[in-house]
């Protein structure tokens, strides 16, 4: 894989009067990866993407796209980009096929080339049957798919996706996620903004958490989880009250910290992974039945809450609001 960064953002800042929307952020995107910007509404995600694509002028900082200074040579940089806005901004009266052909023409593609590419994308995005229908007759999920198809019609080096699954049903969102991963597997670099944790967790190779215009953490899902992990936790549900068992179990497993959770649930926390056999042998010797044993793992949502201090309930509210 080519390791030259395709996007490099350095000390990017955007202020509107006294309000700082984006506050000196820096990051880079490697070729062939899906890089996600995760943050609540108003965190600065769209402002950042708008500065990168040339729709907003940065107050400070630099942006290079495939080595091109995107502020000095905006049109050159835009030729390398595919851009999918957070709304489906195609032409209602035109058919899906005509919309794709028109978008291709904006990048100078010739008639035969754009028509064959449009047919190929309609097929790839399972929209071939609807290709001649006007865009206004498409469902929300179909509209998002066609908008993404329009974004990649000219074979961009990098695709910018702003909130791709917002406002669409669960099945369409699943299909879109599959399509995005498929695009990545075919070599497209993707920059995606989202406030859906599951989108970021399922499809992104690397994620940046952005809050109040600042990047507070960047890394792969595993790296982010590792950074917040305080050890391994084994959770057991037995037939006996956990409080009665905790002290005895603590004496047996000295290197670990045993605590009683509610009811008959026990947690064993250790720096290293906890082998199951000695634990089960202990309970077997005591004649205590174990109903359930599982390793507790941090979710990306837990990590997000720990790092950003934003309650998961707040994001849930945003999800519900966005889905309306």
């Amino acid at each position, binding site marked *: 894989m080519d390791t030259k960064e395709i996007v490099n953002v350095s000390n990017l800042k955007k202020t509107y009067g006294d309000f700082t929307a984006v506050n000196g952020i820096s990051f880079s995107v490697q070729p062939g990866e899906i890089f996600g910007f995760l943050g609540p509404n108003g965190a600065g995600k769209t402002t950042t993407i708008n500065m990168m694509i040339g729709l907003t002028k940065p107050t400070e900082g630099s942006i290079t796209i495939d080595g091109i200074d995107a502020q000095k040579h905006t049109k050159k940089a835009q030729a390398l980009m595919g851009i999918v806005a957070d*709304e489906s901004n195609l032409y209602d009266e035109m058919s899906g096929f005509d919309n794709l052909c028109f978008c291709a023409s*904006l990048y100078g593609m010739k008639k035969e080339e754009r028509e064959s590419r449009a047919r190929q994308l309609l097929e790839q995005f399972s929209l071939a049957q609807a290709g001649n229908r006007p865009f206004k007759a498409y469902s929300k999920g179909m509209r998002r798919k066609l908008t993404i198809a329009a974004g990649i019609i000219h074979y961009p080096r990098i695709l910018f996706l702003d909130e791709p699954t917002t406002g669409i049903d669960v099945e369409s969102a699943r299909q879109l996620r599959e399509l995005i991963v498929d695009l990545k597997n075919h070599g497209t670099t993707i920059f995606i903004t989202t406030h859906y944790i599951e989108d970021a967790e399922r499809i992104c190779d690397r994620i940046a958490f952005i809050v109040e215009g600042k990047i507070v953490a960047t890394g792969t899902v595993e790296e982010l989880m590792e950074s917040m992990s305080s050890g391994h936790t084994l959770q057991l549900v037995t037939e006996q009250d956990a409080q009665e068992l905790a002290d005895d179990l603590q004496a047996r497993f000295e290197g670990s910290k045993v605590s009683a959770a509610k009811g008959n649930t026990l947690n064993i926390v250790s720096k290293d992974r906890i082998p199951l056999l000695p634990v089960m042998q202990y309970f077997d010797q005591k004649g205590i039945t174990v109903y359930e044993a599982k390793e507790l793992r941090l979710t990306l949502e837990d990590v997000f809450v720990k790092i950003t201090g934003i309650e998961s309930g707040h994001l849930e509210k945003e999800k519900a609001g966005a889905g309306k």
Partner: protein
Amino acid sequence: MSTWIAFWNILKKDMKNYYLMPSNVNWGIFFPVSWTLTQFIRSSGNIDVLEFLPGLMAVSVLFATTSMLSVTITFERKGRSFERLLLAPLSLNALLLAKITGTILFGLFIASVPVLLASFFVSLSGVNWGMAYLSVLLIALTSTLIGLVIAVSAKEVFEAQMMSNFFRFPMMFLCGTMMPVQKLPALLRIAAYCLPLTYGTDILNRSITGASALPPLACIFALAVFSAILFGASRYTINNKWIS
């Protein structure tokens, strides 16, 4: 080559989606017809077609072009499809020229409707068609650019329509389309010469009736200056207000 492909396809899309829509074509026919009928009734049938024709052509082009471009761009901007055009690797000049070319062509079509109507009532053999259509082109260009200035300033379609009327109605009364500018009071005459339509109507008058207040070259120069200012103002607004 790639700029030309984009230019041509934007023009083709606008023609198909907006200008060749039956409602707009019908408007282009009914507007001059109803205007002519109004004048015909007002003058009890004693209408001098040749004297009436330049004003009618100028007003038709003014009304068609200012509203069409301002409404279509505001509409596209609201639906964010204009953002797609702005983000394409196409210079802003080429994009704006593609958008205004469709409107100018629509203006040329609208101007031809009164000509066709007039040909049934009077001989048009004395008309200098080259000069007539040059003036129509210049009227269409400046009116379209007024529409562009409105489009880049308005946020809503109704706002664009309201602003179009703010420009159009004073121009209709001041610019020699209904009465010669020379008959206006001195202050209004000054105001008239601050408006591009006055110069376009003057050349159109000369090409159809042979009478004009100013030399055609002076009018062409004035219209070129207006066009450059309006185009520059639109570019500035997009660059500084839309991409801010």
